[in-house]
């Protein structure tokens, strides 16, 4: 056993000395290889963590939201629809939701303005997201002016600022009292933006949704499952789009690595010939090449994976933030929870390490089985 380990270490020593002789090529290859693994690992970590995080955060979303549609577009829903929906068997509560958007031209940001029946918000006060407070340099007790429908500003006092931990849900949120919202936007009294419906037995939600659509054909019920599915699809799609964007660079690397690994140079062919002529067996030459491939691919994989983890979970994926942010000025400052799918890591390992090993070993095997004299002369 000791002899086997010692002989393997000798081959490893030789492989490392060979790689160090062409250190420029070796290090540039490892760097490029690690960069590709880093990008793929970052996409994988980011999309998976975002999907899990959205699942957990939106598990508290309303069970059923009912919108009214006019000519295919969302329109305020009459409150009498809510009274009708409340009579459906299985419905325990119907809560009108009042919400909309406000564009703040000073900081060029969109706010989401929503009402709450919560006691903490009284008339003339607001609760705002941490992102908004940051952008407007607002503290608890400060005043915020919002322009109303009539072009006149209304001043509100900031009663609450949401914590940074909730930024992913509340960064642009402005919570107001219902009366203030209706007055500010001249919102009709007998209407709401949509209705939030609570169903006694969660298994009956699809049945209740179907019944609502039957009773009010001009409505669109959106279940919590629909909301969760939307986000799962978004992060799959975003991950896919990012992979498409990097696929050109990936393809270029694959061609480079394949060319580098599969095409043996005249020097390498001569080296194999010399090794064979001094008594190395074919399998020992193959093990040598396998070690060379493993050193490069394993080092690059580990560096790329570690880099991807640090980028996504410790630095909050600054490279992807711009993609998601678009032209928005208000962007949540969030730290992603390190949800890791180990199956994906295993797939990344197999896809990044094994093809390179294969590309290294096959041409070496072809060179190792020819006559040493021919190999040294560089001809078959």
């Amino acid at each position: 056993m000791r002899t086997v380990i010692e002989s393997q270490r000798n081959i490893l020593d030789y492989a490392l000395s060979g790689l160090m002789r062409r250190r420029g090529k070796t290090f540039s290859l490892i760097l490029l290889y690690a960069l590709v693994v880093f990008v793929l690992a970052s996409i994988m970590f980011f999309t998976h963590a975002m999907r899990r995080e959205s699942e957990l955060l939106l598990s508290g979303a309303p069970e059923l939201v009912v919108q009214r549609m006019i000519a295919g577009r969302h329109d305020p829903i009459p409150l009498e629809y809510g009274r009708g929906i409340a009579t459906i068997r299985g419905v325990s509560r119907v809560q009108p939701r009042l919400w909309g958007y406000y564009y703040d031209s000073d900081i060029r940001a969109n706010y989401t303005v929503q009402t709450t029946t919560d006691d903490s918000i009284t008339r003339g006060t607001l609760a705002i997201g941490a992102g908004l407070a940051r952008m407007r340099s607002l503290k608890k007790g400060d005043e915020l002016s919002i322009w109303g429908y009539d072009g006149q500003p209304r001043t509100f006092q900031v009663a609450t600022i949401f914590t940074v931990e909730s930024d992913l849900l509340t960064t642009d949120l402005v919570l107001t009292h219902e009366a203030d919202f209706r007055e500010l936007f001249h919102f009709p009294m007998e209407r709401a933006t949509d209705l939030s419906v609570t169903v006694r037995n969660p298994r009956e939600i699809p049945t209740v949704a179907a019944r609502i659509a039957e009773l009010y054909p001009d409505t669109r019920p959106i279940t919590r499952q629909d909301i969760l599915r939307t986000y799962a699809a978004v992060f799959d799609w975003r991950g896919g789009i990012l992979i498409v964007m990097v696929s050109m660079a990936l393809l270029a690397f694959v061609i480079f690595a394949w060319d580098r690994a599969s095409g043996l140079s005249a020097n390498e062919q001569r080296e194999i010939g010399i090794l064979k002529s001094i008594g190395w067996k074919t399998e020992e030459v193959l093990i040598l090449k396998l070690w060379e491939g493993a050193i490069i691919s394993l080092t690059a994989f580990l560096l790329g994976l570690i880099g991807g983890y640090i980028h996504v979970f410790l630095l909050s994926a600054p490279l992807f933030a711009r993609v998601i942010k678009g032209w928005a000025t208000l962007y949540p400052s969030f730290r992603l929870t390190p949800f890791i799918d180990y199956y994906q890591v295993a797939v990344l390992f197999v896809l990044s390490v094994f093809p390179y090993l294969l590309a290294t070993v096959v041409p070496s095997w072809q060179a190792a089985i020819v006559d040493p004299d021919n190999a040294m002369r560089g001809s078959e």
Partner: protein
Amino acid sequence: MARPSTLYLSLLLLLGLLLLTLHAHSRCNLANDTRRLAQVARLATRFSLTDLALCTEARYSRHLSQADRHAAFQDHPGALEHFPSGSLLPPPDR
């Protein structure tokens, strides 16, 4: 002078240990973060929030789950998408 294999295996060991530390970091944070997320999820229930505030540039990217089915093109029929995040949204599946 140490053998090259000793140096390389030490490097591998170091990277492996770093990976294990990151794994421990993820395990340690998971319990705390899951608790924190559950607390934030309660905010969603309390204030009836339906969407993540990830893309605040357009109404259909701010409230993805509440947007019209032809959300990205809702300004007028045949309107071209002009918000960067809109081009990254999937086509509606329902």
